[in-house]
């Protein structure tokens, strides 16, 4: 029994059972039939072609944000800044689009992506420098700058970049077709999904196969020994956080250009925090991040279906997401304790 608890599959089974029990208990507490409601969640998330593509759409920014969290986590950093980096990437990327509204060729499209990724990196570098050079805790600083980035987006869509064409709705002008990523058949699934999956595979390969991956492992598990051996901890803090910021910035501009078609407030819909959960679920393993983000994306996408067909507020999906996080920490924590006790 103990060995089963410690194994990878054992943890997965334990976490699944725990989340089913917690969710079932919550559904009972609000007076709903747990089996019926769970069935509805599955159907709303993956019941037909439309549901599946909507789940994939929701999973795409979460996948990128999870990778953005996993990168600094390879160094042992706990960052929750993907949300802010996503906003800032979307902000500067949109700025570039608005300055080039007449563009038709592919070059400005690529430039928009690059601008957004650099913006995400720049936004991540602020807490990174605070951490590496001043010792400010990165979890707290990333959370604070998230609010700043989100408010900057709110400011431009209510103020200087607000388009009169939206009849009072706070948003920028629509993106021209040249700036929209190609979509998959006639769904809203866009090329960002394949890019994100490709990046996950690439990162996994980098972490497992390259010298740099090993450097990060050493600095994470034993920073003092790593630094004594001549490894540069500070530079790697900046590097991992900036690279992570690029991925979150990419998520921001893809979501803006493809799904929303213009910059609006609240564009992230919590993708940054969901990405943190996914990275934790996958224990920062970039290949495992792919199915986990699909799972969480599907769960969140099911909320809209539930609201429509079962007359349950869509926020019920957020409750289940929170219970999932609690379950994984509960099972993981007790499993770790068993492991420590066995030595």
């Amino acid at each position, binding site marked *: 029994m103990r060995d089963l608890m410690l194994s990878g599959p054992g943890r997965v089974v334990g976490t699944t059972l725990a989340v089913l029990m917690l969710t079932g208990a919550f559904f009972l507490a609000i007076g709903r039939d747990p089996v019926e409601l769970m069935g509805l969640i599955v159907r709303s998330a993956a019941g037909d072609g439309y549901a599946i593509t909507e789940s994939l759409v929701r999973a795409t920014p979460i996948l990128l944000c999870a990778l953005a969290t996993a990168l600094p986590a390879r160094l*042992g950093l*706990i960052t*929750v800044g993907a949300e802010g980096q996503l906003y800032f990437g979307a902000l500067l990327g949109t700025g570039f689009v608005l300055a080039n509204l007449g563009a038709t060729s592919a070059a400005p499209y690529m430039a928009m992506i690059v601008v957004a990724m650099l913006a995400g990196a720049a936004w991540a570098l602020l807490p990174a420098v*605070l951490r590496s050079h*001043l*010792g*400010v*805790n990165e*979890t*707290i*600083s990333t*959370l*604070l*700058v*998230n*609010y*700043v980035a989100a*408010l*900057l987006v*709110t*400011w431009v869509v*209510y*103020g200087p970049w607000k388009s009169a064409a939206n009849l009072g709705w706070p948003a920028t002008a629509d993106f021209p077709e040249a700036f929209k990523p190609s979509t998959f058949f006639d769904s809203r699934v866009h090329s960002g999904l394949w890019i994100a999956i490709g990046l996950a595979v690439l990162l996994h390969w980098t972490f497992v196969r390259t010298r740099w991956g090993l450097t990060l492992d050493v600095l994470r598990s034993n920073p003092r020994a790593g630094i004594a051996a001549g490894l540069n901890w500070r530079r790697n803090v900046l590097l991992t956080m900036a690279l992570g910021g690029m991925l979150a910035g990419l998520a921001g501009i893809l979501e803006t250009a493809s799904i929303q078609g213009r910059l609006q407030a609240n564009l992230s819909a919590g993708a940054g*925090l969901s990405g*943190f*959960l996914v990275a*934790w679920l996958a224990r920062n393993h970039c290949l495992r991040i792919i199915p986990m983000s699909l799972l969480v994306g599907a769960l969140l996408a099911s909320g809209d279906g539930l609201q429509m067909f079962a007359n349950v*507020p869509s*926020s*019920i*999906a*957020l*409750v*289940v*997401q*929170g*219970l999932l*996080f*609690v379950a994984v*920490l*509960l099972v*993981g*924590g*007790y499993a*770790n*304790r068993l492991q420590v006790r066995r030595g």
Partner: protein
Amino acid sequence: MDSLDIVFTGFLISALRSATPLLLTLLGECLGQRTGVINLGAEGQMLVGAMAGYGATAAFGNPWVGLLAGAGAGVALSAVHALLVVGAQANQFASGLAVWMLGFGLSAYFGAALVGQQVTAFDSIDVGAAAQWPVIGSVIAGMTPTVLLALLLVPVIGLWFYRTRTGLRWRAVGESPAAARAAGVSPATVQIQAVLVGGLLSGLGGAALSVDYTRTWAEGMSAGRGLVAVGLVIVARWNPWWTLPAALLFGGAEALSLRLQTADTPISAQLLHILPYLVSLVVLTLTCLRRSDSGTPAGLKAVMDR
């Protein structure tokens, strides 16, 4: 009284009002961190406190019942953090984020029915002759019950923490769990108590926010105050007495941004909303810049620096 005084006292009152929900949360977070537990879930606890407090006030027509309900909801949610951190010994940052996520979801779910409802306000407090005192008289007269409650809790908790045996036990657990255990104090019990007290105060802070300060309920309305509290504990050097000036930094920045908005400044309102977060980040950085480890509970260093 000349006009400068009026501007000053008006500003002080609005800073105090804005700081009150944060101050309550900050006091709770401070106690928790002193026992070696950091809780980002304060944000979620504020949200369930705000939602439950608003709902109870709307249902019972009594804001005091609302404060009680908010505090109770905060305790209930913080029990999850206690279970995860003390029970399962999960990572404290991750556990706090899970509690935030859960609290956001629960408050959004149960709060959906509360949007647009009206609540009864607190009766204004009769301060009697104190209202006539020079300078601070008008500040005292402008206080609401939650402001007064938060201001009174600072010395109560400060004295309790530094002058009683229980306070000593709590501090000992944060400084050295091993020494506390040797002295017959169970660190786990103290940490659970501290997390639950933190839940009570942040739930109360959330209720103060929705029932007294904004007098509305909106999804995610705490807008990072709980997270700001986690950072401002460091600025307050983990000292309950210093939570008041730390909270006033945020409250003052928010009051200033509101003041500038009404004064027809060319800076937009959305941009001014950034000010409190920026101020919090800057003072946090300045605090860390001094590089003095004085005041950091030893048990917390392992969590923060890893």
